[in-house]
């Protein structure tokens, strides 16, 4: 673990901080999540470290619980998109033929509409609950993972060492797990970081538009929405959750970048 660049260390530190904050939210939060404790938009003070929100709730408390919601939804959606996408991608690459064609063309179709627009269309008829959000986001995003996993697997498939394993008489499971997967893992892991960021931004955007996490539950995008009217009066409360989203995303990005660089350099001395 030596030789970690400073940028990756910073990324790791903040990522860990946010995740720990999310996990231990009830222990860390000074007040209850829906508890009105002060005046509207009180400035930061010893009592309210980040001030209060549009109806006088403690902003720090809202932020901590909001982080929990945002990170939970994003993580669950990432896990869903990742498992669905990579499993289907590998199957398509290994099976080839009509199954591959059918799945790939379907993914092309879904990807020909902007994800946000598609999500809005779906959410206009689905009940907006956290499980719905996770499923919609996870499935929409799995198209991207599918494409990557399939492309990577197809690249590896044509390698002579995979052919050598086939000629040796190895079973398909050996070929997938021992020949393809170890070589496909690094691009996929790095992609996982990017998918997580995308999920954070996506759920925040939906909540900001009022179509994500519904009040009184808190999430970062929702807190921006609740406090956005303050901006015109010069009250920057809405910027705090927005900055939290940005720093989390940048941190994860720094880590993913590092993982990708590290593993590509591992992969082969001369490329």
């Amino acid at each position, binding site marked *: 673990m030596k030789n970690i660049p400073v940028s990756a260390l910073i990324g790791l530190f903040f990522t860990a901080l946010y995740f720990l904050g999310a996990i231990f939210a009830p222990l860390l939060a000074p007040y209850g999540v829906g508890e009105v404790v002060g005046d509207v938009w009180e400035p930061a003070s010893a009592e309210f470290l980040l001030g209060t929100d549009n109806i006088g709730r403690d902003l720090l408390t809202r932020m901590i619980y909001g982080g929990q919601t945002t990170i939970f939804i994003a993580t669950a959606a990432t896990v869903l998109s990742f498992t669905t996408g990579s499993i289907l991608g590998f199957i398509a690459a290994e099976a080839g033929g009509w199954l591959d064609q059918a799945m790939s063309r379907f993914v092309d*179709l879904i990807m020909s*509409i902007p994800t946000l627009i598609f999500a809005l*269309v*779906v959410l206009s008829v689905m009940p907006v609950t956290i499980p719905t959000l996770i499923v919609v986001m996870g499935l929409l995003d799995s198209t991207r993972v599918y494409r990557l996993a399939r492309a990577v697997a197809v690249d590896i498939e044509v390698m002579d060492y995979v052919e050598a394993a086939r000629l040796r008489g190895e079973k398909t499971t050996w070929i997938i797990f021992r020949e393809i997967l170890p070589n496909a893992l690094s691009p996929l892991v790095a992609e996982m970081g990017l998918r997580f*960021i995308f999920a954070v931004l996506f759920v925040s955007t939906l909540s*900001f538009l009022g*179509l994500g996490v519904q009040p009184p539950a808190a999430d970062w995008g929702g807190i921006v929405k609740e406090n956005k009217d303050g901006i015109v009066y010069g009250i920057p409360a809405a910027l705090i959750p*927005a900055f939290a989203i940005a720093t989390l995303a940048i941190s*994860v*990005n720094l880590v993913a970048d590092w993982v990708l660089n590290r593993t590509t350099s591992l992969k082969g001395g001369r490329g």
Partner: protein
Amino acid sequence: MSPVFKLLAQRIALSLLLLLLISVVIFAGTMVLPGDVAQSILGQSATPEALANLRAELGVNDPPVQRYFAWLFGAIQGDLGTALTSGQDISEALASRFWNTLFLAFWAAVVAVPLAIFLGLLAVRFKDRWPDKLISGVTLASISIPEFLIGYVLMYLIAVKLRWFPSVAMINDNMSLFEKLNAIALPIAVLTLVVLAHMMRMTRAAILNVMQSAYIETAELKGLNAFQVIYRHAFPNAVAPIVNVVMLNLAYLVVGVVVIEVVFVYPGMGQYLVDHVSKRDVPVVQACGLIFAAVYIGLNMIADIVAILSNPRLRHPK
């Protein structure tokens, strides 16, 4: 010319087919999913009679295929139905908003595209030196920042603190072009920032790809100067990838515009869509979704067409 013509015809046909399939998906997405439209409109406390009436009014009782074709033929003729919530004609309500959205996207593109190409060239010129590193740093940051953050930061600093531009972007037909541009200056700035980094990075990659070709070395070894190398040898091969980059990012702009319109309360299609999603006004959502998808598919199609037209192998077959 015939292979090019054939490819172009294929590409356009493919886009139309795609659009048709998308219309099916959008329609199915709003009709077949488990949510009950009538229930969601009227809420949990609605009486069964009210629900039944609304369902009949919505045509929910007709077979879905019949409803789809009715909707599709209407849409082709410009009739997008009526909004459930207001009873307004959707085509009429959308027309002005659609132009407003295009107006915003157009001016954002006018600013962003030349700027991004210029900065992309700059990054190539100073590859691996500080301007290049700054650009990749900004790119990393920009894909991590939600659009609405950029929006509110600019609004907070420029509109509220400095008072240079208005914080909300209201426009109407009575305003002059200059007044309109003044009103949308902030949204344009935000949209530019949103697509700039991406476009820069992709432009940089496209040009570098061309500059690393062996024929550029040949040109340098002919004793041509940097300008001649770029103008005669790099440029003809870089046009297609750059147009491609621009189109892909304009498509990305279409999505960015939805959020930005909400932030700046701009009377465009994005805000209209978001409003009606929360009101669960399905016909409006379908109409907006279809139009956004059509623009997106159209831009992608133009990118491919430019690539086909500029490929010498296709223009001059063996």
